[in-house]
């Protein structure tokens, strides 16, 4: 266990089997893991930090987040969340984390907001009475009071995101993991959502947050440090100012372009 680290990754590698179809899939029902998604990624995130993952599609951001949420097992290397190993102690890891993805189909659409939250609270070992208290507690700061008695299918995407964040925070996790949290939001709703994250999650609770995003304005606004991934490799990991200085660029976008161009090209 690594002390004083919310997240600790050491040479994490992840390989997937090639996707086969037709007769090849029939001949090789269980393929070898040959397609790299993450190659030797290492970094640490101290408690309370907001940490962003950026990179092109297929860079390995979502794979990395899925490893941290125990939905994937790393092929090699070690990943620890709150001091617990994701492969060996997944239940303890899940106790530490709240997880929310940017998709809006992540609830039971015909249940009300409250019914959904009570269900997920129960699955996180929270009693009915404690769940009701917690939902009431989250209702005002998360602005979900009016949504609780409505079926989720009647809610806007922005409101579903608020409900999703409330669900992720139900069991008071110390680490929040977000995969493209504003992917399906319009610009105004996304800006409001970011303000909300900063004020209510990071500001009010001091929660550690790691998120993946393609929206660079969001990364600049939220993140204390930024990890740049390319082809499964960690190209750089620094503050916004540090990245700009390292690339000799004026903006994050330019920094990413320069860092990505500099990266050695390799065959998988």
């Amino acid at each position: 266990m690594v002390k004083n680290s919310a997240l600790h990754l050491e040479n994490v590698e992840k390989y997937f089997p090639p996707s086969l179809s037709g007769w090849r899939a029939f001949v090789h029902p269980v393929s070898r893991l040959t397609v790299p998604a993450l190659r030797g990624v290492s970094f640490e995130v101290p408690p309370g930090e907001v940490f962003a993952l950026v990179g092109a599609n297929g860079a390995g951001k979502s794979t990395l987040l899925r490893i941290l949420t125990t939905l994937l097992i790393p092929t090699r290397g070690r990943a620890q969340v709150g001091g617990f190993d994701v492969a060996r102690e997944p239940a303890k890891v899940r106790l530490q984390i709240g997880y929310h993805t940017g998709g809006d189909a992540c609830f039971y659409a015909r249940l009300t907001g409250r019914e959904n939250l009570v269900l997920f609270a129960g699955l996180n070992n929270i009693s009915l009475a404690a769940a009701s208290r917690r939902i009431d507690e989250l209702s005002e700061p998360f602005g979900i009071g009016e949504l609780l008695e409505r079926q989720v299918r009647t809610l806007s995407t922005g409101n579903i995101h608020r409900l999703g964040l409330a669900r992720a925070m139900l069991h008071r996790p110390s680490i929040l993991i977000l995969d493209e949290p504003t992917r399906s939001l319009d610009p105004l709703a996304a800006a409001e959502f970011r303000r909300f994250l900063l004020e209510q999650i990071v500001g009010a609770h001091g929660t550690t947050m790691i998120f993946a995003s393609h929206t660079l304005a969001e990364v600049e606004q939220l993140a204390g440090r930024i990890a740049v991934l390319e082809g499964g490799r960690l190209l750089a990991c620094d503050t916004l100012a540090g990245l700009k200085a390292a690339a000799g660029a004026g903006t994050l976008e330019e920094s990413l372009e320069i860092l990505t161009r500099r990266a050695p090209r390799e065959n998988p």
Partner: protein
Amino acid sequence: MNDSPQFLLTLRKLELLFRRDFAVASSYRAAFLIEIFQALFGSASFYFLSQFVQSPTLEKALPRGTDYFSFALVGIAFFDYLSMALTTFDASLQEARQNGTLENLLVTQTSLPVILAGSSLYPFVLLSLRTAIYIGWGALLFGFPLRGANWPGALLVLAASILAFSGLGVLSASYLLVFKRGNPVNWAILGLSTVVGGMMYPISVLPPWLRYFAWLTPVTYSLEGMRAAILGHAPIRELLPSIGGLLLFAAVLLPISFAIFSWALRRTKITGTLTHF
């Protein structure tokens, strides 16, 4: 956090998952009414079909005092528990993948087997209700004999059947977890059970060599016990061979199937295919 013992926590989770499915199902109000009338049509078609099935061999093979309609109705109604067990775990996994909740369920403090078990409760309760409606229509309109049936015995056979069938269901879900489509486990079990399980005819009408296969599927023990309890009015002690056979199947199948399921789940976390269709 809840400090209740693990067993109580698991029961609470099963209840929550049942409530979820009940709430979702009750939001589709017409479906339940349709179900009731579907059962009437099913029951009626077996009755009229049974009027044509007149064979001295069959009459000799049926349990004493039983007509073919009652025999077939019990067979068809309770065979559905096997079909349900083989499909319900797959279906709940597929549904969670489709509605996007699978990842959110898997990052909770609840294991996938508990999620699948909880998600199968409502389908089993609904099936039991449908079975009761089938038999109810049969009794009301077509003379299905309810009087004298050993209902507690039938419930015991049913509970043992669900345990044994669930072992097969978990095996079937393991296959789908890894290979996603086309399920030979399901196909082989249902195929064998349909032919030799005694759903539509007594196994005594099978050729002697095929009768041996009948005892390799739990549905044979289940239907034999059910018919003995409901139609033959057998006391519990006469049901013990059937219940014992089913419990033996459960004792062998459940640990093996859960071990295979754990392997399959780990495999999907390695290959990254857990949430793939």
